[in-house]
């Protein structure tokens, strides 16, 4: 009883101290900025979507029913999410081995590799996207090379295809996969790998039973970032994919800035936000499970 009271007093004292000196005041400016610049516009977006006409005269559900009764829009949502999944898969397949290589490099070379990984982030996404036109174009590097080697007789169509888009997004989004992955992996205790190897585990077994599970939080964080970024990459999607590959950001742009039907644009935006967030929520749930698996 006395102990419980003492503990209670302790907690209350802790709370008071926390409220007095707590870090929450430090987070206040960010929280206010977040509320004013993100939450308020998001609520505004929801409000705008409940108008039937572009002049905001008539409130109703017409914009929602119009969007969700058109089967074409379901295809657009599915294609958008699928593009994200494909990009995540290719960035993992290409990025994970690179992170493993990074882990085994001496510190000096690690710094150089890290610089190479971060470098694309220093360039505008517009520049990177247009560079891919030069690489994938009909008269671009890839086709010139394949034609020169005699492997093909006609230039391949790489631009304005989903394959070309996924290839370029893989490069464009790669830093977002590698940075969290490397930061988690470089904190792994190297003794664990050595111990597993010393106990007779093969290299593959060490990889799949030690390294991959331990790097899971970084991998999931990377997947999250790549997924969110590639599904909303309007410039890359439209410039490299063309307008025959229709994803939700293009629909938002058309409704908002070409037709000026903002309620329709708001519904398309919310469809994008909700569908991307639900995949992200699933991924973070997986991430939490993997962390629990590690520590629990």
């Amino acid at each position, binding site marked *: 009883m006395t102990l419980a009271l003492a503990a209670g007093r302790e907690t209350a004292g802790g709370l008071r101290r926390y409220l007095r000196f707590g870090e929450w005041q430090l987070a206040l400016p960010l929280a206010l900025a977040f509320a004013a610049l993100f939450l308020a516009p998001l609520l505004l977006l929801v409000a705008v979507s409940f108008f039937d006409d572009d002049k905001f005269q008539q409130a109703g559900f017409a914009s929602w029913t119009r969007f969700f009764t058109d089967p074409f829009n379901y295809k657009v949502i599915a294609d958008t999410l699928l593009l994200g999944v494909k990009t995540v898969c290719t960035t993992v397949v290409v990025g994970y081995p690179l992170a493993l290589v990074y882990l085994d490099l001496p510190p000096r070379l690690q710094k150089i590799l890290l610089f190479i990984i971060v470098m694309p982030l220093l360039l505008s996404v517009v520049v990177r996207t247009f560079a891919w036109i030069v690489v994938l174009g009909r008269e671009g590097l890839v086709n010139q090379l394949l034609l020169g080697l005699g492997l093909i007789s006609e230039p391949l169509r790489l631009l304005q295809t989903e394959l070309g888009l996924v290839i370029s997004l893989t490069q464009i989004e790669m830093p977002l996969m590698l940075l969290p992955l490397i930061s988690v992996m470089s904190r792994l205790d190297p003794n664990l790998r050595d111990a597993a190897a010393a106990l007779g585990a093969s290299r593959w077994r060490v990889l799949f039973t030690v390294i991959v599970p331990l790097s899971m939080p970084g991998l999931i964080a990377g997947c999250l970032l790549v997924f969110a970024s590639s599904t909303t990459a309007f410039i890359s999607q439209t410039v490299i994919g063309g307008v*025959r590959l229709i994803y939700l950001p293009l629909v938002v742009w058309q409704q908002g800035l070409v037709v000026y039907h903002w309620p329709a644009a708001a519904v398309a935006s919310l469809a994008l936000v909700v569908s991307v967030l639900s995949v992200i929520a699933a991924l973070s749930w997986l991430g939490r499970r993997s962390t629990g698996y590690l520590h629990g």
Partner: protein
Amino acid sequence: MTNHALSRRSLLAGVSALGGASLLPDLAFAKGTLTATTYPGTWEDAYRAIVMPALKKKEDIDLELAPMFAMDQVGKAKAARGAPPFDVFVLDPGPRIVAIESGLFEKFDGKKLANLAKMPAGLVDEHGVGVSAQVVGIAYNPKKLPAPKGWKDLLVDPWVSRLGLTGFQTTFGTSSLIEISKQFGGSLTDVEPAFVELKKVLPKVAAVGLPAAMPGLFQQGQCDVMYTNTQTVATLKGKDIDIEFVKPESGAIAFYTTMHIAKGTPEITNAYKYLDLVVGKEVQEALTKPPYNLVPVNKDAALPPDLPMKSLDEMTKYINHDWAKINPQRAAWIEKFNKEMAK
């Protein structure tokens, strides 16, 4: 003996004086600023090279140019709700009508233009002033393809497999698709035949892209024939790209490019000075010269030989579209284009 060492106080005074002096030219000379939109590409280059220094010299106004497509200007002004992000619009007929309907312009008073008498009739109204004309037709790469004769040629080989298409987002895209439709029995408000014909050849078409991406795709050889305006052809030619303009045999499309004062701008006086300068003889003459090739509106402007249109008097010989009839249809056309063209 004099002490030459700098005291903290004298240093501070000196620095303040220097700092203060650096502000003086601004106080003495800056009569004002003006933010005007311009189209990316040739228009931006031309206005940066010619209009910006001319306005500074004549009126002492610092001109800031915001390169934006017409649609984007209207979108941004609508979103700004009475606090426009720029003072003067430059628009094509389609977005112009949307902007008028949305009340985005100040009432325009042509009498405030000193050059009013030099303008052809009908070019100045209560909404704004025409500053040039744009001509839309077919552009192709003469090293890769023979010259197409008309719109129908675009949908047959050898052109169709090198064709770059854009949809209804821009004035030139919409106008061209209407003209294609007319060749197959369509009309100003019926583009269905164009959809039917395009769908037949779609797998062959080289590229379907956003208007802003087309010059880049042409430059990279992704497509070798497209519909576009003469200014884009001039810009690409200026970069040593093999490109020629063709007037289709059924006629090229022409429309006025107009400028308007944004509603709610505090810079109305400067906006009139800018517009008067733009339509004045000197600026108009300079804008007609290569590589800009803009069609002049001032009757006194002397003309170089290779303009697509010599003066706005020729406007009647070109195809003019009634955008008041087109605009109500565009949302549906854009949606249809998405569905018909989607992979």
